[in-house]
């Protein structure tokens, strides 16, 4: 008998995925099974868009780790227990702000008349507003980072919580320096959290289309924009389905790799 979870997964996940694949492999125009894929790749810029999507998602995830890992560390090891949950709740709340509201909030920070440009000019660092803070790849990375940061902190924090105080004490007893303790105890034991964060965050970021559309420049397209354009502008649903299927395949590969690495760290 199927586990009860499949009653939800089958109609809400597997059926749409199968329909997507059917659409991708059975195009309306009666072409061959791979004609939608051929058509998608005949758009010379798709590969460039995929490469750019990985660059933006990679940069964003890197920045999230750079900010999120120390934050998770501080909350887990340097903050009193009673403040930890409220801090995490605040983080979750910041992540649950509507994307549109957050994006337009960044307008007032990064725009030509925004806070950053005003401060730069007020301090005499620049004499005119700096273009390219908004409507650029930089803006896309910053806005994605701000939106997804909580979902990086929480899995890393959870992994760090599994580190027992006695393990840290043992390292100190063996005259391990703080850096060596971090490198040999904290980092390996929190790596599954990093990989969990990767699975949770990297794939949705890779397929995002609203952020590049609203704060990206004319050349900051991601694969999600390609799919959206195929539906809304070109009206080519098989091509959109083929591009989405490619994205799905890339996601499956990434999840597979992340799971293998996680198992390795768990000693499985």
């Amino acid at each position, binding site marked *: 008998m199927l586990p009860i979870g499949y009653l939800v997964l089958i109609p809400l996940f597997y059926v749409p995925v199968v329909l997507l694949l059917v659409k991708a492999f059975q195009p309306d125009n009666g072409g061959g099974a791979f004609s939608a894929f051929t058509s998608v790749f005949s*758009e*010379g*810029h*798709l590969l*460039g*868009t995929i490469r750019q999507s990985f660059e933006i998602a990679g940069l964003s995830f890197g920045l999230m780790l750079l900010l999120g890992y120390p934050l998770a560390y501080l909350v887990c090891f340097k903050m009193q227990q009673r403040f930890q949950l409220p801090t995490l709740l605040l983080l979750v709340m910041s992540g649950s702000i509507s994307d549109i509201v957050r994006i*337009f909030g960044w*307008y007032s920070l990064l*725009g*030509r*008349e*925004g806070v950053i440009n005003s401060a730069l000019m007020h301090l005499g660092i620049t004499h005119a*507003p700096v*273009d390219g803070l*908004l*409507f650029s790849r930089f803006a896309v990375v910053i806005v994605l980072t701000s939106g997804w940061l909580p979902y990086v902190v929480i899995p890393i924090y959870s992994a760090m919580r599994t580190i027992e105080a006695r393990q840290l004490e043992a390292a100190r007893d063996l005259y391990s320096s703080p850096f060596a303790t971090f490198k040999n105890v904290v980092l390996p034991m929190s790596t599954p959290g990093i990989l969990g964060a990767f699975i949770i965050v990297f794939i949705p970021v890779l397929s995002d289309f609203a952020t590049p*559309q*609203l704060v*990206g*420049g*004319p*050349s900051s*397209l991601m694969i999600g924009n*390609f799919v959206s*354009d195929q*539906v*809304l*502008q*070109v*009206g080519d649903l098989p091509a959109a389905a083929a591009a989405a299927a490619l994205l799905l395949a890339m996601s499956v590969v990434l999840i597979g790799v992340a799971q293998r690495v996680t198992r390795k760290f768990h000693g499985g």
Partner: protein
Amino acid sequence: MVKRRIALIGVPVLLCGLLSACGGNSNGGINANGSVTGTLRIFSYADAFAPNVFDAFTKANPDLTVEKSEIASDDGAVAKLKGGFKTDVVNTCAGPIDDEVANGSLQPIDTSRIKDWNQIYPFFTNFKGVQSGGKTWMLPLIGGAYGLVYRPSAFPIPPTSWMDLFTTNKRVTSPDDPLTNIVTAALALGYFPPQSMTKDQLNNVQDLLIKQKKHVVTYYQGAGAALATLWKNDEVDITALDLSLVNELKGQDIAFAPMSIPLAYACGFSIAKDAKNLDAVYAYLNYALSPAVQTVQATSYSYLVSSKLTVAGLPASVLAKSGQKNLDSYTKAATYGRANDQAAWTKLWQNVKGS
């Protein structure tokens, strides 16, 4: 027995409820006083629902339930209708209407039920897409002409030709749609009418749009609100548009430069394929064409209006501002309409965006 009675009553009630929830529509009717009843679903841009435009209709038809849905973009509306979205009346423009007709999303309009159809200017009734295949697909209500909207502080000498949009080193923005970009580039290169360009001309248009990209800040999405935000925040200096933004941001750093060959558009209402309450549909269409509504559109938004009856009552200043007085000259304008080879246009635009 009680259970059976409940079943006898309950099943039809449940079925009725399900039918109405699934979009079953009351056919409605007409009251003795001429007001219409039932339900009317309207899928439109927000300006049609503005209180000064819409409320008089609901007051005149108190027994009518109106379900409003807002359109976010032309492309989105076309896709939504194609996907089976249920409505009775849809707000559309020359351009997307060609797709909606091709997709089978609309039903033809019976012009004998439009009281003042004969009062509509030929500029509007002859507009590409309004009538095709011997049928009328749109009740044209408003129109306008694109020129260049620019920031006077960035352009001490106003732009004079479409090419200024492509050769400037100021900050440019355009809507994220193939039509506006390709037509304006075609006009800049002197290709007329833009809808019938040859392959070589299309290649030249593509090259021009790709060259322009380094000065494009962003291809904005949706209707005017996004552009207004860009303008107010001093992010852009020039774009192709009608007078609407200049009127909205009156007194700010913004001006309109008309072009010798403008880009004209026409918008109005169409009837969706599945519309059932046709009495309410035609009541609404007649209301939308009435001088009361069109006067608001001419005075508040500076649109060109389609009815001679409306124009007869408008002050000269309003007519001058909207360009209504130049209506005859707009028959020589480029029209905001789909290309003969639309697939080539969408591919071109994808190439530009992906370059």
